[in-house]
């Protein structure tokens, strides 16, 4: 009886962390996928609802050319001037 109890305790000691780790890893991947889905869905919604306008500096490099602008956004299109 005592031997059985010790055997079960030892088994649990070794088995539990293994099974809990494998469960955690599965949950972790699931949670990572759920977190990504939730935040990306919110991102899409937030961008669709954002109608704010900004003035900002833009630095653009394309095909070896570098340009810098001051940009003002309007609902009719963006105006920019080189800086």
């Amino acid at each position, binding site marked *: 009886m005592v031997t059985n109890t010790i055997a079960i305790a030892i088994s649990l000691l070794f088995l539990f962390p293994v099974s809990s780790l494998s469960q955690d890893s599965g949950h972790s991947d699931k949670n990572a996928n759920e977190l990504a889905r939730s935040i990306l869905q919110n991102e*899409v919604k937030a961008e669709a609802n954002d109608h704010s306008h900004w003035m900002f500096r833009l630095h653009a490099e394309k095909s070896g050319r570098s340009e810098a602008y001051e940009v003002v956004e309007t609902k009719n*299109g*963006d105006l920019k001037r080189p800086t």
Partner: protein
Amino acid sequence: MADEQIRRQERDPSALRKSLKQQTDDAAHSQRLLKLLPDALLFRFGERRGGAVQLHFTPNPHFRPTTREARVFQAMEGDLWLDTKQSRLMEIDGHLTREVKFGGGVLGHLNAGGRFHVKQMEVAHGFWELTLLNVNMRGKALFFKTIGVQQKLQRSDFHQISDDLSVAQAANLLRKQLASR
């Protein structure tokens, strides 16, 4: 020269409309791609920095793309950084692990190793804006035309302005900026 450029834009509403349409199309395109990401990719946790969480992503082998552009996801690996407090995407950094062929290679391909990096940040309370776009892709389209997309955009020094600013008011704002320098 700068003032002349402002005047030209002020006088040419059709050019402004054209650039606005381009922006609207780009935004719709990026929204379509963002919507696909949770199904197209598999995520696992990386680092944590305060409220920011990094997720590594790899292609989801069960994802079946229905558009040519979505096929790129089948060869894409990288990292996302997420702001978990505000539920916003802070950064996405990805690269192509292998060549992507369109139409079995007849319609074109993108070379392995192509990279892109996009960052956005909160520029005012509750407002997030794109601050970095860095794309470096190479390939071929329609047999011989070489695609070379090497583009880097950095946006900074954001100031919120009225949502119903007219073109004339925007032009004056730029002129004031010009005069103050």
